[in-house]
């Protein structure tokens, strides 16, 4: 079975090479049959990689420990759930998953556009298959996932217990779905540049692709943060580690693109800028994969140092060279259709929003690469720590948040004073009043006050927009508020979905502000029966328990938590020792509420049953995860296909570029 997997990957490589060559030849010879052949080859790549995936999955489930990969990441005692997850628990397997998602996306994109975008498609297929080849080359030539061991061990080493967490099971696929998803918009951008079809058609074709990739990446990043929070036990969710940064950078440029593309659709401006953002997003996705796998920057997450680095760098250089050459060649065709009429307008506020996002991206890139840069320039490796990232990104992030309140409401072209007053008077008043109240309640942390005041302002603008929209709907069609709200959102999903995403972002900012400005941290040492107070909680050490489970031995501490003298909760912080890996893990005891999280780690214990605890009180973290859910909800609303009467769309293939709105909307149905 495992032989089949390796062979399938080799055939997939040949197929992908064929697809690239035939697609490009078809484009230059204007031969439609060659494009068809290239598309069939792209489907073949998908099926072949699927065979390799099934072979790997089968090997894992059948405990085929002859395979080096299987014996590394799985063991007999693991549940089926985690055995499946072990597919992406190691280097080779996760690259296989990356590749599979890419070829799946490619097949969907080809299928979707079999009648549309025919001038672009040869380049789209070629670009996607070149990306696939990068990973195929690494899997076939460097890191063979089907590598056999000289003799079969009786049992595997098993997946690291820290990874045996449901969050960690869904986090990597989400990140990959996001990362890889940006390959499709990039392929269309290259297609548009190479074919010269630079109207808004291609932008419309990728709108949903971009949003979906963005959604997965957002969810992936949030899940990673939550996993770190509940599993790693250092009390936080984000450490500006190079690997976290690697996922954050393409997210920033993709977010910038999602916004500025609206200016191109509505006004025909910022065309070159949008191309740059798509190219950057793709390049940063590849660069992120490189960062995590090459070991160039010492990261706590990094995979073992491997020989993959040069492959990525050569590829990245090649991609940038081709993309920039194409872009420069097409510059004359990418002129703006309109000119800017006023600085106080939505156009320019979008531009500023983009500057902030790209600025944050650049700061993160600079900080991440600083050791490499300083070594090249000054000969010493100098690294910057989390304070750098916070110092730079907190002001930029707050500026961005402020713009998310201003952007959607300021008028296109030129905002009048009346427009400004109408939209911003109430939100500003709300912000001022509540912030004053917070100040009088004793909140004196300056950055927190600024952050809360901006959050309130943005919240105010969103509520105002919904209020006005609902009032207008009710005036037109009557009905109650609920119906009016539904009708409102349904009529303009992108707009109101966007507002909901912004509201989610506000909640995330509230969570970040509360937990970073007002975190309490305390080390506590207790003997059995003793009490200690942390913040307004009192912890009482009641019992010490020891349990033997199938895979691990557990040491639990029973803590009674009192708040204002009343019983609040009973918590069991825990240490485990996993037998298979001889690996201790710390299970955080977490009591979450909308106000604050009580977060307790059992740092250690003595034979005398004396225990050391590390206790954190993290205010408002709850709202960060809620905000994440709201962002997901808003994005799904924006992505959801709109219901339209079905128009006949049987245009011949040659008429691409004339796609009707209905067809575009149907793309995802």
């Amino acid at each position: 079975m495992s032989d089949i997997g390796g062979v399938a990957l080799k055939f997939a490589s040949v197929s992908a090479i064929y697809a690239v060559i035939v697609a490009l030849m078809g484009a230059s010879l204007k031969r439609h049959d060659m494009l068809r052949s290239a598309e069939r080859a792209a489907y073949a790549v998908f099926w072949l990689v699927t065979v390799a995936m099934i072979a790997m999955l089968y090997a894992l489930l059948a405990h085929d420990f002859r395979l080096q990969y299987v014996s590394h990441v799985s063991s007999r005692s693991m549940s089926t759930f985690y055995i499946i997850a072990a597919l992406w628990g190691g280097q080779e397997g996760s690259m296989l998953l990356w590749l599979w998602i890419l070829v799946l996306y490619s097949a969907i994109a080809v299928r979707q556009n079999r009648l549309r975008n025919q001038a672009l498609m040869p380049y789209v297929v070629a670009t996607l298959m070149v990306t696939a080849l990068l990973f195929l080359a690494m899997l076939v030539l460097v890191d063979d996932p089907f590598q056999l061991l000289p003799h079969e061990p009786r049992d595997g080493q098993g997946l690291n217990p820290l990874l045996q967490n449901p969050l960690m099971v869904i986090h990597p696929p989400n990140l990959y779905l996001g990362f890889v998803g940006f390959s499709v918009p990039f392929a269309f951008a290259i297609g548009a540049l190479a074919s010269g079809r630079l109207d808004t058609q291609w932008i419309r074709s990728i709108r949903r692709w971009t949003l979906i990739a963005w959604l997965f990446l957002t969810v992936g990043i949030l899940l990673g943060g939550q996993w770190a929070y509940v599993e790693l036990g250092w009390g936080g969710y984000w450490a500006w580690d190079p690997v976290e940064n690697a996922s954050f950078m393409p997210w920033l440029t993709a977010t910038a693109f999602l916004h500025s593309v609206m200016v191109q659709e509505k006004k025909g401006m910022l065309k070159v800028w949008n191309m740059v953002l798509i190219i950057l997003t793709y390049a940063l996705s590849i660069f992120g994969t490189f960062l995590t796998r090459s070991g160039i920057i010492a990261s706590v997450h990094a995979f073992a140092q491997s020989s993959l680095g040069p492959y990525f760098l050569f590829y990245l250089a090649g991609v940038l060279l081709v993309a920039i050459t194409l872009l420069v060649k097409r510059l004359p065709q990418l002129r703006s259709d309109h000119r800017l009429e006023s600085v106080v307008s939505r156009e320019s506020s979008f531009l500023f929003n983009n500057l902030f996002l790209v600025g944050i991206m650049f700061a993160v890139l600079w900080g991440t690469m600083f050791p490499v840069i300083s070594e090249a320039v000054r000969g010493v490796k100098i690294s910057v720590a989390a304070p750098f990232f916070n110092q730079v990104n907190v002001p930029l992030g707050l500026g961005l948040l402020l713009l998310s309140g201003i952007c959607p409401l300021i008028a296109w072209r030129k905002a009048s004073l009346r427009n400004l007053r109408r939209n911003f008077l109430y939100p500003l008043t709300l912000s001022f009043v509540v912030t004053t109240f917070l100040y009088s309640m004793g909140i004196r942390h300056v950055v927190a006050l600024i952050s809360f005041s901006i959050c309130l302002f943005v919240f105010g603008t969103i509520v105002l927009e919904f209020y006005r929209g609902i009032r207008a709907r009710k005036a037109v069609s009557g009905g109650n508020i609920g119906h009016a709200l539904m009708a409102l959102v349904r009529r303009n999903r992108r707009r109101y979905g966007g507002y909901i995403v912004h509201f989610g972002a506000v909640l995330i900012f509230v969570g970040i502000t509360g937990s970073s400005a007002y975190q309490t941290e305390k080390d506590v040492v207790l003997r059995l029966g003793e009490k200690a107070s942390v913040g307004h909680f009192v912890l009482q050490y009641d019992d010490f328990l020891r349990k033997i489970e199938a895979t691990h031995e557990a040491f639990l501490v029973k803590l009674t938590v009192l708040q204002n003298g009343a019983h609040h909760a009973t918590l069991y912080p825990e240490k485990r020792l996993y037998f298979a890996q001889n690996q201790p893990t710390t299970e955080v005891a977490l009591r979450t509420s909308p106000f604050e999280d009580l977060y307790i780690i059992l740092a250690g214990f003595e034979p005398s049953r004396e225990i050391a605890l590390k206790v954190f009180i993290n205010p408002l973290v709850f709202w960060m995860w809620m905000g994440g859910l709201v962002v997901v909800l808003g994005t799904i609303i924006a992505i959801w296909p709109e219901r339209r009467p079905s128009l006949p769309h049987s245009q011949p293939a040659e008429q691409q570029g004339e796609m009707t709105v209905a067809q575009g909307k149907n793309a995802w149905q």
Partner: protein
Amino acid sequence: MANQYVKLSIGVVIIVASIGYLIFSGATGSTMYFLTVPEIQQKLGMLQGEAVRVAGKVTEDPIDWDVRNLSLGFVMGDEHARIPVRYKGVKPDMFQPGVDVIVEGRIDRDGILTASVLMTSCPSKYQDEKTPPSS
């Protein structure tokens, strides 16, 4: 018209300049030398009191884990170069002899690295060839 572009350019320049300022002022404020253990030993004299970030392996030397004070003492390096480390905080789960760690802190007069940050490699790196020791 042209006037608006001038205004816009001024806005853009202000934003870009302030981002640039934030990056450079931030970068000078929170830097530390990123070194390996042999590099530390070579330059021990000049590094006293400096903020350093050190990557290396935990040696097989005995580990002193004082639960009551949350204080962890160990030695980083290999048979050629070594540096003693004293870390205040919780012992990470992955911490054991032989693992790669990154520590951040300062080197004091006795040549001991007093660390405020101790990070062990993320479990996704779990690709060791040898089977873990069973003790």
